[in-house]
C-alpha cells in the first residue's frame, strides 16, 4: 500500500519563487526615496531641474568667476564700469571682504589698540569652550571666569582710559566685536532678569505680579526698533540735564530689556510645567521661597525649557543687527558702511558683503541651535 496517493501530499515540486526584491543598495534606496510613485518621480525630476538651474550658476558666481585678490574696485568692475573685468562679467568680490576683513571684525577701533579686543575675544573663547563641553569639571569656577572675570577684563580693556590704556570711545567700536559684545551682555542680563520677571509674574503679591505682567506684555507687544528708539531718544529726556548715557550703553539697555521679556515668558512656561507637588513638597520641608525656587523648582523648570531659552538667545543674536538702524556699526552696519567706500564701490560689492555677513550670522545661530539640540539629548538621556 506504499504507492497509494494521499490527496494531501504533493506530487510535484513547487516552482522556485522569484528572488525577493532587493531591500538594500543604491537602487533600492533610489526607488524608495526618490521614485516611489509617479508623483514622487515628477517631484524629484522637477527639483533636480530647479537645482540644476540654480546651483551651477551660484557656484560659478560665488567661486569660479569670483575676484579673490585685488587692491581696489578695478578687479570687481567691468571695463565699462571702469574696471578690468570683461563686459558682462559678474562674480563675487571676495577681494573686498579680504581687504575689509579687519574692519568687519573690529570696526573703526584704532589699529595699534586692536590687540585689546583680540585679547578679550581669545579669553572669551578660552573660557567658553570648557564651559560648553560637559565632561570638563569645575563648571562653577568656569562660570565665574566667564560671567564675572571676563566682563571686568572687557570693561577695563575695551574702552580703556585707565592703567595707561588710551581711551577708545564706543563710537569707534564696530563689526563682529559689537555684535558679540551686545549679544553676550544681552544673554548674561536677560536670563537672570527673565527668571526674576517670570517669578514675579507668578508671585502671590498682586502689585509685583501686575508690574511684571505689564512690563512683559508691553515689551513683547512692540517691535524691538521702537524699544531701541525709546532707549536712544527718550532715555536722555528722562535724565537730569548734563547726565548722558553712552550710545552703546543705551543700545545695550534696550536689547537686554527686550530679550528679558521674551525670556520671562519662556521661563514661565517651564515653571508652569512643574507639577504642584514639587512646590508643595518644598513647602512641607520648610524651605524658604528662594530656597524652594533655587533648589527645587528652577533646576527642573530651566532644564525643560532649554530649547526655548536657546531660541531666545538666537533671536537676541539676530536682533543685535537692528542697532545699525540707530546709527551703530555692528557687523551688518559696518558691512553696509563699506558699500559707500568709493575705493570699492561696484555692482557686486553689496551682494558679496551681505553674503559674507549672512554667513557669519548663520554660522553663530546654527552653531547655537545645534549645541542646544546636543544638550537636550544629553539631559534627556540622563533622565532615563
Amino acid at each position, binding site marked *: 500500500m506504499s504507492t497509494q496517493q494521499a490527496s494531501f501530499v504533493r506530487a510535484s515540486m513547487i516552482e522556485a519563487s522569484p528572488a525577493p526584491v532587493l531591500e538594500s543598495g543604491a537602487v533600492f534606496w533610489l526607488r524608495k*526615496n*526618490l521614485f*516611489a510613485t509617479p508623483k*514622487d518621480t515628477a*517631484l*524629484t525630476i522637477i*527639483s*533636480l531641474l530647479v*537645482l540644476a538651474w540654480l546651483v551651477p550658476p551660484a557656484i560659478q558666481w560665488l567661486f569660479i568667476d569670483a575676484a579673490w585678490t585685488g587692491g581696489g574696485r578695478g578687479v570687481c568692475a567691468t571695463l565699462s564700469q571702469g574696471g578690468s573685468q570683461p563686459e558682462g562679467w559678474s562674480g563675487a568680490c571676495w577681494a573686498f571682504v579680504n581687504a575689509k576683513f579687519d574692519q568687519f571684525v573690529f570696526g573703526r577701533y584704532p589699529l595699534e589698540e586692536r590687540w585689546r579686543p583680540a585679547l578679550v575675544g581669545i579669553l572669551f573663547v578660552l573660557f567658553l569652550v570648557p564651559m560648553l563641553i560637559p565632561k570638563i569639571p569645575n563648571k562653577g569656577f568656569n562660570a565665574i571666569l566667564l560671567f564675572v572675570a571676563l566682563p571686568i577684563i572687557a570693561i577695563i580693556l575695551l574702552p580703556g582710559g585707565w592703567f595707561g590704556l588710551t581711551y577708545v570711545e564706543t563710537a569707534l567700536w564696530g563689526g563682529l566685536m559689537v555684535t558679540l559684545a551686545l549679544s553676550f551682555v544681552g544673554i548674561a542680563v536677560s536670563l537672570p532678569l527673565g527668571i526674576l520677571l517670570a517669578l514675579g509674574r507668578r508671585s*502671590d*503679591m*498682586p*502689585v*509685583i505680579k501686575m*508690574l511684571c505682567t505689564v512690563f512683559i*506684555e*508691553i515689551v*513683547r*507687544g*512692540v*517691535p*524691538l*526698533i*521702537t524699544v531701541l*528708539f*525709546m532707549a536712544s*531718544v*527718550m532715555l*536722555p*529726556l*528722562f*535724565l*537730569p*540735564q548734563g547726565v548722558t548715557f553712552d550710545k552703546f550703553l543705551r543700545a545695550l539697555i534696550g536689547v537686554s530689556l527686550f530679550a528679558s521679556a521674551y525670556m520671562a515668558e519662556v521661563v514661565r512656561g517651564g515653571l508652569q510645567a512643574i507639577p504642584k507637588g514639587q512646590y508643595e513638597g518644598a513647602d512641607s520641608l520648610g524651605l524658604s521661597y528662594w530656597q524652594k525656587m533655587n533648589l527645587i523648582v528652577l533646576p527642573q523648570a530651566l532644564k525643560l525649557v532649554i530649547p526655548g531659552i536657546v531660541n531666545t538667545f*538666537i533671536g537676541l543674536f*539676530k*536682533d543685535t*543687527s*537692528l542697532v*545699525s*538702524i540707530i546709527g551703530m556699526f555692528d557687523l*551688518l552696519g559696518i558691512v*553696509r558702511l563699506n*558699500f559707500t567706500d568709493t575705493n570699492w564701490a561696484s*555692482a*557686486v560689492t*553689496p*551682494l558679496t558683503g*551681505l*553674503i559674507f*555677513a*549672512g554667513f557669519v*550670522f*548663520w554660522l553663530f*545661530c*546654527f552653531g547655537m*541651535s545645534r549645541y542646544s539640540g546636543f544638550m537636550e539629548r544629553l539631559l534627556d538621556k540622563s533622565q532615563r
Partner: protein
Amino acid sequence: MAIGVTNAPERSKSSGSIINDPQVRGIFYQAITVIILAVLIYWIVDNTIENLRRANIASGYGFLSSRAGFDVGQSLISFSSDSTYGRALVVGFVNTLLVAITGIITATVIGFIVGIGRLSHNWIIAKLSLAYVEVFRNIPPLLVIFFWYSGVLSILPQARDALALPFDMYVSNRGLAFPRPIPGEGSLYTLLAFLIAVAASFLVARYARQKQMATGQRFPVLWTALGLIIGLPLVTFLATGAPLTFDVPVAGKFNLTGGSVVGPEFMSLFLALSFYTAAFIAEIVRAGIRGVSKGQSEAAHALGIRPRLTTRLVIVPQAMRIIIPPLTSQYLNLTKNSSLAVAVGYADLVAVGGTILNQTGQSIEVVSIWLIVYLSLSLATSLFMNWYNARMALVER
C-alpha cells in the same frame, strides 16, 4: 482645607513675631516696591518736564494737525507734503498693514509648502525644505531685507531697459510695474455677484453640515462653493459686457509710463518678511502634523476611510488645533518685523513716526502712538487666539 484655614492664624500667633508672618512681609515688600517706583516716576517726570521746557518743546498732540512738509514715497491714500502729521501717521499705518497682510499671505503659502515638504517621503524634497528652513531661520531679517534691497533689486537694469515679464509686467531698479485694472461701468454688478456667491457658499456649507448630521451623507461643499464663487461673478462679468480695461505700462525712452508701480522698498521688505517668516511657519506646520498621533490615521484607515479623506477629516483638523496658536504669534512677529521698513525707507508707521520725531522733537507723543498702535494690534491678535482656542479646544464628553 478646613485644617489649613484653622491652622494658619495659630501658627503666625505661635511664632510670636510679626516679622515672620508671610502676609505682613508680602505687604511690606509691595509697599517698598510701590514707593521706589513712585519716587522713580516722579524723578523721571520732573526731569522730562525740565528737559522739555529747556528744549522749548510744547507737549501734547497738537502737532498732529500741523503741516507735515515731507513727502511719502508710496501711499494707498492721497498724501502730499501739505497734509498734516496726523494724516502722515495714518498713511504709515496703512502701509504697515499693507506689507503685513501681503507678507502674511505669502509667508503662509510658502511656509505650508515647505513644512509639508519636510515631511515628504521624497528624500530630495525633504532635504531641500530642511535647507530652506535652516538657512532663513538663522539669518537676521534685516540682513535679508538688505539682501533684496541692495544686493538684488538695486543692481537690476534701469527703468529704460526694464526686464519684461509675462502679462505686461516690467521689473527694473525702480520696482515692479504691472498693468492696473480700471473697472468700467457695470463692474459693480460683478462685485455684487461675488458677494452673493460668498453668502450662498456659507448657506451651502450649513446645509451640508445639517444634511450630514441628519443622514450621514456628504455633500461636495468645496466644489459647489468654488463653482459659485468663481462662476457667478464670471457669468455676471461676461453678461455685463466685460467692463474692465487695463492701464498697461509702456517702456518709454527714459522711464516706464502707465500701470501701477510697486517700489523696491516695498518689494524688498515684502520678500524678506515672507521668506524669513515662512521658515518659522514651516517648522510650526511640521510640528503640528507630527503632533497628531499615528493611531489617529491608523484608526481612520481601519474604519475604511480613504487616504485623502483621512488627511482632510482626521489629520488636518487636529493638526490645525496645534498649528493655529503659534501661527498667530508668527503673524504678529511679521507685523512687528515690518517696522524694519525704516532701514530701507519704506514709509511704514515707524519710519513716518521717526521722521516726525526728528522734525518736531515730540518724542514722547510719537513713541506713545507707536506703543498704542502695536499694543492694540497684539491685543486684538491675542483676543482672536483666545476665541479660537476656546472654539477649537477638545470637547470631552
